[in-house]
């Protein structure tokens, strides 16, 4: 598809800091190439704002290739925008029409408070990982990598789960603000591999306990998270997490 230039109206959430109230601001943007990415479009807006001596819109991003999980954004009411299986940084302007109004908001979740404008604080995810998202091995003194064969389907499924980038779209989309998809991705990855199997139940228990403690909601299996996950993490992993969790409680 040949590229062309389009004009846009942006409705962007501006909020000074965690404590202030925040409101939408409207901006007109002209001559945006449909070949540019969504974040490049915001770059253009920010250059324009700097030119007018105004503060640019703060937003999180880093790799700009869909892998670091730093970018976020609700775009027209959808986490990571209208395209499926991609992050905001991979979204391109050819998905939008000339003259369209685009509403841009941060993740709106109690456990991820707004830092400024479109940036949120996802430290809660870190705490969940610290509670159990690992195999308890130290560096060194490890047997040969091929000592334990792993069936390819298991390795592949573990890889599917391991693809989670920790972006938070699942939480932001869930009406209960549950972090189950995120937690299940790690629990499931490690439970599928012999190296992680040993601690599978206790891991599930510790991570879920931390998740509850941090105020994330319960999972009521609505599946919205799966729809918006840029990495295609499926509800099947939540089912596996539930099994591990049950096991842990039976043992207790």
């Amino acid at each position, binding site marked *: *598809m*040949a*590229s062309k230039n389009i004009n846009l109206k942006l409705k962007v959430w501006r909020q000074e*800091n965690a404590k202030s109230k925040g409101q939408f601001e409207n901006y007109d943007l002209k001559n*945006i190439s449909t070949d*540019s*990415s969504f974040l*490049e479009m915001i*770059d*253009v807006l920010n*250059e324009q704002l*700097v*030119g007018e001596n105004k*503060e*640019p819109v*703060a937003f*999180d991003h*880093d*790799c*700009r*290739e*869909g*892998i*670091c*999980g*730093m970018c976020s954004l609700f775009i027209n009411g959808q986490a990571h925008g209208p*395209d499926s299986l*991609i992050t905001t940084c*991979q979204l*391109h302007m050819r998905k939008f029409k000339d003259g369209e109004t685009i509403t841009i908001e941060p993740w709106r979740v109690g456990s991820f408070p707004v*830092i*400024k404008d479109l940036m949120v*604080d*996802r430290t809660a995810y*870190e705490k969940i*990982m*610290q509670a159990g*998202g*690992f*195999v308890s*091995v*130290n*560096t*060194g003194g*490890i*047997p*040969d*990598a091929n000592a334990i064969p*792993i069936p*390819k389907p298991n*390795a592949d499924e*573990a*890889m599917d789960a*391991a*693809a989670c*980038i*920790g972006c938070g779209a699942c939480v932001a989309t869930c009406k209960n603000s549950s972090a189950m998809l995120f937690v299940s991705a790690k629990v499931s990855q*490690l439970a599928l591999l012999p*190296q*992680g199997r040993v601690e599978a139940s206790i891991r599930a228990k510790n991570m879920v306990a931390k998740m509850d403690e941090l105020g994330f909601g319960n999972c009521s299996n609505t599946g919205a998270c799966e729809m918006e996950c840029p990495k295609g993490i499926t509800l099947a992993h939540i089912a596996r997490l539930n099994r591990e969790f049950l096991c842990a409680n039976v043992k207790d």
Partner: protein
Amino acid sequence: MTKLNSKIPEGKLKDKWSNYKAHQNLVNPANKRKIDVIVVGTGLAGGAAAASLAELGFKVKNFCYQDSPRRAHSIAAQGGINAAKNYPNDGDTVYRLFYDTIKGGDYRARESNVYRLAEVSNSIIDQSVAQGVPFAREYGGLLDNRSFGGALVSRTFYARGQTGQQLLLGAYSGLSRQIGLGNVEMFNRTELMDIVVIDGKARGIVTRNLITGKIESHFGHAVVLATGGYGNVFFLSTNAMGSNGSAAWKAYKKGAFMSNPCFVQIHPTAIPQHGDFQSKLTLMSESLRNDGRIWVPRKKEDAVAIREGKKRPEDLPDEDRDFYLERRYPAFGNLVPRDVAARAAKERTDAGFGIENNPKKEGVYLDFKYAIKRLGRDAIEERYGNLFQMYEKITDDNPYKTPMKIFPAIHYSMGGIWVDYELQTTIPGLFAAGEANFSDHGANRLGASALMQGLADGYFVLPYTIQNYLAYEFDTPRMDPKTQKEFKKTEDEVKARIDKLMNIKGKQSVDSFHKRLGRVMWDKVGMARDGKGLQTAINEIKQIRKEFWQDLKIPGEKETLNVELEKANRVADFLELGELMARDALARKESCGGHFRTEYRSEEGEAKRNDAEYMYVAAWEYKGDNKEPALHKEPLQYEEIEVKTRNYKTA
């Protein structure tokens, strides 16, 4: 002139590392608790080092500018990681991996370091598997390998097209465990602003909290910089938006030497640039060269027709395609090393055969038609599905049906902070690991070797070598940065520079300066360089720097989140680093690896080294603003390897 002491251990190459470990000093367990180690960076090198040091019992403070250690740019590595496991039984050995790395680096890397790297490579794979890294496997349940450029064996381990992500998440899981246990104190969204040196030793750092803007100090008995590469000096590169050279530059200004800064890698297969608004270039992994064939049209009129949209590449018959790598380098074909592949692409596009309709008509094809025919679409999808998806999202072209468009892009910095065998810089107590140091890749890095080096440094080298230093430090009491005057002085300098930046109140944005610098760097310090151009570059960079300090505009306040200020801090350093890169390139009157001086080439157009005069590591010493830096030379000696002209035409 200071003599560089690389501290290479005695003995035969293959015994050096075991000899070193057998005789080095270690810190006893009770004393480890009394020692603070600062690790800046949470990529493969920093994350692995922080976790491993904490496991040993040291108290670690770990820093990154992202909101989580898991987001360091190592996450973006796609293709794979090398190791000399020889699982495929195709003849690999530690020596061969060592040999390939030295040869790939065009004989500009230190032999002893590279041998150690090859030696510990296998442990990295074991370690990662134990952490639950889901590497690709064969149906029998054992690990699978693929081939990368510059090697005749299959030694690359991979996890789909997300190897860096999985290895980093492995290191991150170990790090998270140590944070949870209270052995690592983690500082996210915190940027290093300077290094504190007291009585000649590195004793801590000054940072800026990126959310509050607060300037803070942290004490450490030793400081490790694992802050990644400086490719973003070119503005457009495959690096993350926040990747920077500032930590290395601060170290340089405090007395660490900067080595071979002109050695940067231009990766042959990134998606070509398409507009001025562009913020970064996206890599298409080298692994694709396993199955893709690179070509341009044989006839110029076909190239023109394709650029004008009058012809489709898939309609061009094979006899009208020039598979120029297979033609020029029959032994290695599409798998020649990166510098060779990148220059060959430039040669064809300069000659008018480029296929992309961008301003410079730059682009070549990477075609999967042949592999799909041979292996079937499913096999290709399994190997590269996520890369193909990424490509399609960016370009709106389907690479299963039409060849990918690719072109070289700045990707990696082989140059970096000078370190000795112990990874210690010329400042005692300051160490550098991963891409931030210069040590292992010479003038060109082989694919899948950066992940190997980062993790080797972090898991298996630094946790040993740093103890040889710390063994003398355990009775140094912890210092209180609030009362120690050198910390206060460094903080004041940092604050003064921020004030200076904020007070310029000019008219031009940070990005506009960064883009100008990038253009000079790409045109004159990029894929092909010459003496005249480099001299011009130095003058132009000075001019941009001058304007930057007179006319920069930063809206907002300093003591709060201010992204423009963050960028300004980094670009101010790039504007100095860029000049040093040009100087280094100017001083190296030869072509080697990624450093191609058009004045020095063979009749066939290949890079021509000058071993008699330039077989050394350049190490630059800062002498003060507006003063010429001093060049020190570490001669390179090859005892176990015969130095040859690189040849990828015959095996």
